[in-house]
């Protein structure tokens, strides 16, 4: 009896001292192994007086269950411990920076250009392109700007030869497309254009987006509706828009499109030259002379065209105050967008 109690006590103290799985295994062997203490007690059952046998057997069994239970419990605690230790050892400094990896940036002009393209594509416009070095015919004559016409002064032209120029606008593509296709036409033409001019507000190269819509019954009201839709998409639906008569040889009537100054909300500031308005688009109904030259019957179709400077829109959208930054390609500038 006492012997079993003593065994139980000694096990209890021993098992609580065990600190490793290996020690635990030894302990287990010593108690419940083939030659273990419990086994030897079991073998001594025969020497126990008959009347005490049932109780001894029962106690022994209890002790055995107790020991096995303790060992199991201890084992899982040690394993848990071990696992935790191992994870701890694998710890890294998660505050170190990640491996340097970064994306580049798209040029702000092309970011705005994509935005413009996406808006028009969503309205069913197709994208077209044309040559940057262009025949005088397409750049001027087919757009109702004959040689020796004062309208040529509106654009300072880079000449390659007498009849070849760096295109001064994306409008020549209108004619090139009309020569190839019949209405209905809905296209935009993004691209680089060139003017022989360089100062604070002019660069010799800049980007334009030209638009053209031609069908059998397109009116000035359609021009207004579409461009308002576009502007509200690009600058927000509360942006005031106004159309103001202007002149382009290839459209008639022609309109400049102004938006309410986004910096002063129309109250007048340096950027809008205190007018409260910012000019962002030129537009107009396609001049029938242009239709004629492109081979369309002038009374058969009507349509409108528009053009915008991407640099200007980009400057307005991002609050950029110096046009020349676009072409300096300073990464400290480009990475801001």
């Amino acid at each position, binding site marked *: 009896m006492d012997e079993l109690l003593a065994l139980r006590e000694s096990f209890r103290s021993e098992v609580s001292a065990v600190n490793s799985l290996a020690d635990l295994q030894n302990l287990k062997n010593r108690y419940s192994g083939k030659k273990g203490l419990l086994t030897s007690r079991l073998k001594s059952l025969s020497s126990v007086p008959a009347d005490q046998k049932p109780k001894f057997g029962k106690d022994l069994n209890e002790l055995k269950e107790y020991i096995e239970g303790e060992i199991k419990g201890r084992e899982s605690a040690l394993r848990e411990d071990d696992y935790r230790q191992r994870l701890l050892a694998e710890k890294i400094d998660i505050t170190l920076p990640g491996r340097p990896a970064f994306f580049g*940036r798209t040029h702000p002009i092309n970011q705005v250009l994509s935005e413009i393209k996406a808006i028009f594509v969503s309205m069913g416009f*197709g994208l077209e392109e044309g040559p940057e070095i262009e025949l005088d015919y397409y750049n001027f004559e087919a757009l109702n700007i004959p040689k020796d016409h004062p309208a040529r002064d509106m654009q300072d032209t880079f000449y390659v030869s007498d009849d070849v120029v760096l295109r001064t606008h994306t409008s020549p593509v209108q004619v090139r497309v009309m020569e190839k296709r019949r209405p209905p036409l809905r296209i935009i033409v993004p691209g680089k254009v060139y003017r022989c001019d360089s100062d604070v507000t002019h660069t010799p190269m800049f980007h334009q987006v030209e638009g053209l819509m031609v069908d059998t019954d397109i009116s000035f009201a359609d021009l207004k509706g579409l461009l308002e839709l576009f502007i509200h998409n690009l600058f927000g639906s509360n942006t005031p828009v*106004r159309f103001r*008569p202007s002149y382009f040889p290839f459209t008639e009537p022609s309109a400049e499109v102004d938006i309410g100054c986004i910096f002063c909300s129309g109250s007048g500031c340096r950027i809008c030259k205190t007018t409260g308005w910012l000019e962002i688009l030129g537009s107009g109904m396609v001049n029938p002379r242009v239709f004629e030259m492109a081979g369309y019957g002038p009374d058969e179709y009507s349509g409108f065209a528009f053009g915008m400077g991407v640099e200007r829109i980009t400057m307005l959208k991002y609050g950029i105050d110096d046009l020349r930054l676009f072409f300096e390609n300073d990464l*400290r500038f480009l990475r801001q967008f």
Partner: protein
Amino acid sequence: MRVSLQWIKDFVDVKASPVEIADRLTMAGLEIEGIERVDGDMVIEVEGMGHSGHTGNDMVFEVNVTPNRPDCLSILGIAREVAAAFQLPLKMPAADPGEGLTPSGISVEIADTDLCSRYAGRQISGVTVSESPKWMRDRLEKCGIRPINNIVDVTNYVLLELGHPLHAFDADKLAERKIRVARAGRDAAIMTLDGVERKPDENSLLIWDGSGPVAIAGVMGGEGSAVTATTRNIFLESAYFEPTSVRRTSKQLGLRSESSYRFERGTDIEFLETALNRASLLMKETGGGTIHHLVDVYLNRYQPVTVEVSYERVNRLLGTAIPGQDILGILGRLGIGTEDKGETFLVTPPAYLRDIRHTVDVVEEVARIYGFGNIPSRVPKTALSDGSTNPRETAISSVRESVRKSGFTEAVNYSFMNTADLDMLSIPADDERRKYISVKNPLRQEDGAMRTTLAPALIRNFMHNISRGVRDIRFFELSKVFIDEGGRLPSERLRLGGLFYRDRSPSIWRQDLPSFYFVKGALEALLDELRLKESSYVMSEETFLHPGKAADVLIRGARAGYVGELGPAIIEKLDLKISKPEVVVFELDLDMVLGMVSRAKTYSQIPRYPSVERDMAIILDDDITADDVLRYFSGYTSDLIESIELFDYYKGKNMPEGKKSLAFRVVYRAGDRTLTDEESFLPKHVPMLSKRAISLTSTCLCFIASEVAINDILGPSTLTTVLPVFPSRSSRTPAAPALYPKFTSKADDPPERTRCPGVTSLTSGMMYIPGTCIPVFFMNSTTSGSVLSLFSSCCLTYFPAPASFLWPKASTPADSSYSISPPASLSPSATMIIYVPAFTSERITRAK
């Protein structure tokens, strides 16, 4: 153009505030770009249009007159617009010199009537040339014209007021008192008022007197006939010159004047007499004298044009429903005659609106006065049309995104190029990039040509940034270049260019590979994104690149561009103050690349059976490229080999001088079954592969267990080239068998082999090694003993002549003193197959 509000009020009694007037004019098509408050000739303040209120002595409007509105290049013209906008009457100044005047005594003849339709004039005799009255001087100065004397000032005053240019000759200096309007013809020369000797071309229209040219018609008068302080008699000219002729002459001479500006836009042929009379009266008023009778040669009379327009057409084009009466009312206010014809109406524009000839011209006038703001907005109704998707555009976007995601930031440069840059890059004389297009009138000589390559601008961008302390510089640009191929227009080609520069200062996670590979990786990612698989890289001959670090990019065998490090000579010219900077540039012909992109995406089933991978490392001479090896391998095809990929490159410690190690992974797979080890067993294929590799170089000696083995155990080996081979990952060992019929029984095996460490048994003449079985191929006749002593720890079988090979007995790997000579009978081309104990992956890792 600057106009005084006070002056406008001479013509129209407008009460509205300057700001309101400016606003109405702007919305009617005369954009007022600024308002200045002036007192006398002093500008007091620049007034904003958004502000209102200040009343000064006078206000000056800066008006932007578009080229289609020559009728507005005057106070009268603006006043007419104000009158129309505010529905006010227009007052005209006195312009009647009276009746019964004496003749002018100057004869006028128009020789070239195609360039001059009307020439009128009056003589004013007995004038006193003096200073103009203050009111006149003030008005001129407010409008930006410097007063000179009363005669000149009057001509300018009337030009500003009525928009018609006049010219005052000193009548006494006109030889033979005669005016002849004729072309310059050959060799004409004239000293103009500005004191410059001009040589107008043959077709320029000049005004001649009896002895020579006295003025360039419509552009500038001659000095010889100019009014001076002593002038007494004036001949005042008021004429109509052909706009294009004036424009051509003015352009040819590079001489612009207020007169030419108006003539070339078109003046009012009917009104010129009024201007002449007004000026005559003002001269008399300011200088005294007598006005003489009009001389007027008017050959091609102005014929008013009548345009018939339908009301419906006007409203259809505008999207409006303006009543017919309102349309006619608007036109009437502009001084345009109209006549209602029921469905249509007739329009008869005045001479100053002679550009109104078509329906749309009428529509424009109606629209601008009706007010663009009053026209409704509607969303267009139109048929659906295709074309909103553009595959090229989509592809370009994906190129931009791909390169951007590789860390490159987009640059946009001018399309101009300095041709000296081509010399800087040593571009050869016959290179395509020398076929550039020149601009006739560049802003700067350095921008005199159109780009044929993106590289110079990208290098400039690099220099800009490095000099400002930016350390990581990665640019790309998507732009056209222009190659003159002799056609009317050059060939325009879309290029993708880029530049990469990485700062070498310490970074926490070092990546020390040559910059070239960063860029090549980006290009490979790009081509992968475009699903272009068949690309390769060959050494490039670009003159500006480092000859050893530059590649031409080939796609399906065609050269699409280059990538490489800028050569030392260029770097030196850039004077960077950085030691050994690696600046990598690339350029791709995107038109060509995009032309090869297929939109079709095809599906193939994901493999259902597992692959077996076998790895093989090869130590090669430096000058054998990875591509050489892959190309040789690719000549060996097996249905079971799915891919052979390079996955490791090593050079440096433990590698012999001039050598590098390349590790390839051979992936075996069958579409219809799991491969047996036998099928994918590398030895079966390696002899084929190795023979090809071996044929690359005569110094190729053997394949050995692993690069680790050769590096760690042998140290700098006496082998010139070693090709190690080791299978990976497979925990199973090959059941070797029938591949090598020679070794079908244990009896053929050298018994010593069983003593090799790690070797537990032999099966059919093949090694059976726990873990992995590593085949080693070995060939040569001059192999040194130390290598063979390594092999002595291994089981060895050889091929094709096993009997002739001498096998070192009872030696161990540690016994490096053991040395043998290879069998003399072993042919130099013989291949031995050697199995060595497995280097498990763990062991390899540890050894590394």
